[in-house]
């Protein structure tokens, strides 16, 4: 009987304990904490911290930048060769193909690139319409290669039929026409691999009458698929992700700029300027612009000339408006400065 009472007592005790625990508030408070207010606050705080782009790689506005950056010495020079008449009407270039050249796509990420003259993209070639373009290809690789030029030329100069064997040499020679922005790339099979690995570049063919003098930039848009799964890991202006974010391109306010742009990756790209619009010359094959815009979709191997002038000093992003491409490296900065000499020069 006594034991019964004890059992009853214990039961009541346990029930009371259980009820107390169920009603204990900390659990509920913890659940309340899961709402988004601290989260929202943290995001708002990080948005408010727009650091100057001098410190930045990709997404600098969210954090103190750490880790490695591209040094100025590694940056692909965005200035094309000057427009000038070729000696004796013949513009000569030598392009040396090498395979498995270590190419730093993003800081610390080296890919075994196949290169023209050890850079990705290859050097910008420049010639005036009607002049002879003579390009000697030296193949120092282990595979046969070619150079295929876009433009009007004889079939024998098309860089498709005659493969240049390892150790071999070949000279392409034809009259450059029409004027415009033309790609060149290797056309060995599988062409997809030869292009992806870095064998591409830009030819600028100037019109005979020339274009008005301007500050000029040449930008090739491409991408790198490290694991060959069909989805690129890094996209880049001129072969290195975020190189012009780490090292902004300096422009002067009031200075007219001409940007030659080419897309050589197998996805559409959309060059976009911040704080400005550009006059668009599709393929660079006209002397008058066809559109005044700030986004133009360049399909595969498509190119254009963009002309613009910045009115105000400051930092302006130039990016691919495909946000994935931007976030994986197709993003850079113009640092527009007040420069009185430039202002005077352009007023003349």
């Amino acid at each position, binding site marked *: 009987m006594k034991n019964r009472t004890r059992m009853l007592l214990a039961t009541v005790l346990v029930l009371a304990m259980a009820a107390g625990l169920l009603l204990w508030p900390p659990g509920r408070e913890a659940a309340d904490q899961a709402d988004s207010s601290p989260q929202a606050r943290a*995001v708002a705080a990080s948005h408010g911290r727009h650091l100057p782009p001098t410190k930045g790689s990709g997404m600098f506005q969210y954090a103190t930048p750490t880790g490695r950056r591209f040094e100025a010495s590694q940056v692909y020079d965005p200035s094309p060769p000057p427009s000038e008449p070729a000696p004796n009407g013949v513009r000569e270039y030598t392009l040396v193909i090498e395979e498995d050249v270590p190419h730093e796509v993003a800081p610390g990420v080296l890919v075994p690139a196949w290169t023209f003259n050890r850079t990705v993209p290859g050097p910008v070639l420049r010639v005036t319409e009607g002049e002879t373009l003579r390009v000697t290809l030296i193949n120092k690789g282990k595979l046969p290669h070619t150079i295929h030029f876009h433009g009007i030329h004889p079939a024998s100069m098309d860089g498709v039929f005659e493969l240049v064997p390892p150790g071999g040499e070949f000279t392409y020679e034809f009259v450059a026409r029409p004027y415009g922005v033309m790609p060149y790339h290797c056309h060995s099979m599988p062409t997809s691999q030869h292009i992806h690995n870095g064998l591409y570049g830009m030819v600028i063919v100037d019109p005979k009458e020339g274009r008005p003098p301007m500050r000029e930039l040449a930008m090739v848009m491409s991408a790198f698929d490290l694991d060959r799964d069909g989805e690129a890991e890094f996209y880049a202006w001129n072969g290195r992700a975020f190189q012009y974010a780490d090292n902004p391109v300096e422009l002067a306010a009031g200075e007219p700029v001409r940007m030659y742009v080419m897309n050589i990756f197998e996805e559409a790209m959309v060059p976009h300027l911040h704080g400005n619009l550009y006059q668009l010359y599709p393929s660079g094959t006209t002397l008058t612009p066809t559109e005044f815009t700030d986004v133009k979709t360049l399909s595969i191997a498509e190119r254009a000339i963009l002309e613009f002038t910045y009115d105000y000093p400051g930092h302006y992003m130039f990016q691919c408006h495909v946000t*994935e491409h931007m976030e994986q490296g197709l993003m850079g900065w113009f640092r527009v400065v007040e420069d009185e000499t430039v202002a005077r020069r352009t007023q003349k």
Partner: protein
Amino acid sequence: MAEPKTSSRALVVLSALMPVLLLGGVLYLLFARGTGLRLEAPAPIEKLDFERVVLEPGEIRAHVLNTGPEPLTIVQVQVGWISRASWEFEIKPDPTLPRLGRAVVRIPYPWTPGEPYEIVLITANNLIFTHEIEMAQETPTPGPEMLGAFALLGVYVGVIPVFLGILWLPFLRSLSRQWYFFLLSLTAGLLVFLGVDALHDALENAERVPDPYQGVALILIGLSLSLLGLYAVSGWLKQRRQSRSSGTAEVTTPLLLAYTVAFGIGVHNLGEGLAIGGAYALGEFATTFLLVVGFMVHNLTEGVAVVAPVVRTEFRWRHLIWLGLLAGAPTIAGTLMGAFTYTAVWAVLFLAIGAGAVFQVVIEITRHQMRQAGAASLASGASLAGFALGLAVMWVTGLFVTV
């Protein structure tokens, strides 16, 4: 036969060491001379495991372990949402991880709750390692509040249901004697189900264990060690009791059996708590209200299992509290450990130990019933029905747990 001479002891030692010494020699030759085979991999072999991913407002921290054969260096970090984005990062202590070395990758990324993300780590050899966050939510940090919350989760899932189950004791006592074996068999059924369930969970968690730690082998070790270990301990306890009461007392007292059951369930609950806390920490599920309720219903039966052996025995009521705590309280330790220090290795080990403990208890119960009523009673209608009902109850209440 002559006794071996003492001087031959050196020979014995030598004969024991000989194969090892010879292996050392062969290995030396292999390294010095080479094999003539190309043993270098044509491409670098790298493996990186995500051990723990912590989400804090504006920040993701990935705890990674190099489980490959060579050191590796992390050079770039991307975060995937719909598409991947290169992101700032900081790696401590060093971006280069030696074999089985650890590092923490800090990514200041403004994630938002409820969204899926992918963490992408790119190594210097261009290999890519990813971890998916199915649904982002803030990771509990071991502050007093979250500590309390997780302890409370353990109380809800482990302690309360066991005690509530124990409250059935007065009702169970009112049943007649033939129901006793029904109850024992019911308990056996519950426990067999729990054991298999724990093994299943252990196998599932084993997939998350880094390869060098051999998850499935850990299950074997945990299972056999607890099975044999408990066997030895209970044997030792019985022996002591026997010698003390000069062999007249019953071999296994019902109370001792109840404690064995409580211990087995306790270890099992520790593993269960680890799994719950760990899954929460990895952001793999939200501890929904429904899930907690499910566990409570499921574990209610554990209380019945604990007291079933003592239904027909007089004992001091204080034992009930100890029994309940022994069975339920380890859940608290489990959820806390799982939430704040989770590694899959521990979850697997404890789940396997729990399974072994539970199976051992089933053997113990069966032997107890055989001694009390003979082997034939195991096949009696009451026993079979009890066993079947035990399985059925667990299965049905398990429906609440699997969301």
